[in-house]
């Protein structure tokens, strides 16, 4: 039997993602790519370059800014957009708050869950029929059944009973006016694949993904980044009375809203070290308790994306 040369797993995942991006471009009339400057969206932007260069992207980029993003990430986002020569739309939660469509219960309330309001307003404003996002099926058990082209009704709602079967690589991204498709080109990637791809493609990431010393507060076992200065100079996550600030060696696995993304302890200061760490950490502390940790870790990621997806 002849065994032919086939694609490596990274090449295959890349080829699949490019195919999905091109289906979005071919089937949808007004798509948009959600771009935060985080690692998953940086992978997608690299994939879009491979899909559409030497042409321009057939869609703009859009970031829904909670107003609580790390300065390093926002700077990185803007630099990357400039390098690519693509168009970035930024819509912020604060605009929705001014309009009165978002009302916070108290100023410190985590803002992630409100992101969807601003996103839906932006979708309506621009008439987008598809949002390309970076969610992955391995992030959380409940996501294991998510489609690559996921259908949202007029209210932006995901109805598990109303999802379209997906067979072969024949995607159905059709929608009526007002409805919306969420397209997930890296659905089949794991966190490990993402890091391996970042390493292979030598992608630059915001610095806070790598191990660094940071002032933190340990609150109920969580690591809370302390006294974080926002782009506008405001300082958030101040210690409550009685809380102590300690210096720890940490890195972020996700870089969503500051108030709900905790870093992890890590010495990994290069992409290769993170690849090794990602491969091993999931198992070294094995056992039932670890399973619970994994769930909460996954739901942390999910919370980050809840607003979007």
């Amino acid at each position, binding site marked *: *039997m*002849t*065994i*032919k*040369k*086939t*694609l*490596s*797993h990274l*090449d295959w*995942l*890349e*080829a*699949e993602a*490019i*195919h999905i991006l*091109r*289906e979005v*471009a*071919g089937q949808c009339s007004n798509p948009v790519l959600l771009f935060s400057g985080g690692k998953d969206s940086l992978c997608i932007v690299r994939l879009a*370059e491979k*899909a*559409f260069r*030497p*042409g321009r992207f*057939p869609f703009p980029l859009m970031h829904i800014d909670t107003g609580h993003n790390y300065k390093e990430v926002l700077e990185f986002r803007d630099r990357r957009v400039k390098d690519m020569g693509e168009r970035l739309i930024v819509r912020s939660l604060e605009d929705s708050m001014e309009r009165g469509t978002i009302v916070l219960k108290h100023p410190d309330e985590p803002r992630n869950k409100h992101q969807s309001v601003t996103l839906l307003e932006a979708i309506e404003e621009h008439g987008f029929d598809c949002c390309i996002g970076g969610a992955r*099926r*391995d992030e959380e*058990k409940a996501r*294991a*059944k998510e489609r690559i082209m996921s259908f949202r009704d007029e209210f932006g709602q995901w109805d*598990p*009973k109303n*999802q*379209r*079967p*997906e*067979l*072969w690589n*024949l995607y*159905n991204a*059709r929608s009526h006016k007002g409805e919306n498709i969420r397209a997930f080109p890296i659905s*089949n990637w794991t966190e*490990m*694949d993402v890091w*391996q791809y970042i390493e*292979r493609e030598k992608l630059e990431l915001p610095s806070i993904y790598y191990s660094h010393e940071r002032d933190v507060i340990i609150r109920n076992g969580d690591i809370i980044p302390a006294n974080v200065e926002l782009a506008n100079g405001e300082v958030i996550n101040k210690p409550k009375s009685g809380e102590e600030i300690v210096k720890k060696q940490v890195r972020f696995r996700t870089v969503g809203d500051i108030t709900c993304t905790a870093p992890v302890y890590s010495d*990994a200061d*290069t992409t*290769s*070290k993170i*690849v*090794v760490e990602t*491969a*091993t950490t*999931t*198992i*070294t502390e*094995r*056992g039932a308790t670890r399973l619970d940790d994994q769930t909460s870790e996954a739901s942390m990621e999910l919370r980050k994306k809840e607003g979007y997806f």
Partner: protein
Amino acid sequence: MSNNMQNPALKETALLRFMTCGSVDDGKSTLIGRLLFDSKTILTDTLTNISNTSRKRGMETIDLSLLTDGLQAEREQGITIDVAYRYFTTGTRKYIIADAPGHEQYTRNMVTAASTANLAIILIDARKGVLTQTRRHSYLAHLVGIPHIVVAVNKMDLVDYNQEAYDKICADYMAFAEEIGLAGARDIQFIPMSALNGDMLVDRLDNMPWYKGDTMLELLEKAPVAHAEAEEDFRFPVQFVCRPHASSDAELHDFRGFMGRVESGEIAVGDAVTILPNGYESKVKAIQIGNEQIQSALTEQSVTLLLEDEIDTSRGDMIVKTNNLPETVKQIDAFVCWLSETPLSPARTYIVRHTARESKAKVAEIQYKVDVNTLEEQQTNDLKMNDIARVNFKLAQPLMVDSYKKNRATGAFIVIDESTNSTVGAGMIV
């Protein structure tokens, strides 16, 4: 210092997609849970260079089915059960598992899961042997063209790891496989195991010294991945045409790139090609991924083709080698699995999506429907959810097709309901 990419466990690996089929309680979740869990152990072992030969994988305290999700709960709530996708890597391979519930009503889920799989694990409870559902799963795996079948006889611990019991099940299965034409057409392997204890999954353990074949993991590691086994016809559906003509860059001014994925076969610079359905001929001038030039492209690679001649081509066209053309048809004869709660209506117009192309379509005839349990052909006038039938469609636009047996990419299509935009059918061209 860190161990970095020199580490063999972290290199780029091959990718295998497989599916698991079994009835409720056959041990599917336990099997998947163990593969997910033990593979992480293996990866860690490789990374940390710990010898894993004598170490027993300690899973006693964990309910393995917890690693997959609570399908049970969904079942109780009567929620539609869908295909779930799960991932693991051993360092030598990445695996994507499509996990489809096995109950009769879920034919459509099984067909969905099977559509992207190159191998199917069919679980049989050693106490129960070959059942109606085993036949159904095997027929569907065959229909959807999965080339490698692993029949896993599970719960061997409950039959005292008895070889005769196992041999009898294998013989029963082969008899049936011959009946439905599965035996000659597909690669079938058998394995006795206990998903609960871990016998023959990742470790052999010592309860079944009479079994000399591969463990489940060895089978998976050796199984050919998609497109690895035979020469294929080159098929390149055009998804998107890149014409950045507004650019001030003189070199880009005439750039015309045809973007798509090599669905099958291979292509190299200089190859003579034909663009269908129009039939124009040209040669491949260049192949690119983004701005990078490559000399040839492999199956499943997403690339941009540049041709020597200026040819008007748009999304939905297909580039093929001039000496190897698919059929261009306005009628199709296909096996169709109906996916929607709304039955097929012969009076209505549907959309058929095939590769990157769409056509309006009407049913010309429903030849018969297949009872997936008895495999009997029955006369029928309508198709309901989970039905499988042989159907003729008339098309408004020509499609460039191969038979599904020959080519799973250009032989497959989906049926879309124009009014709801739902995907209502899955078709395989005869």
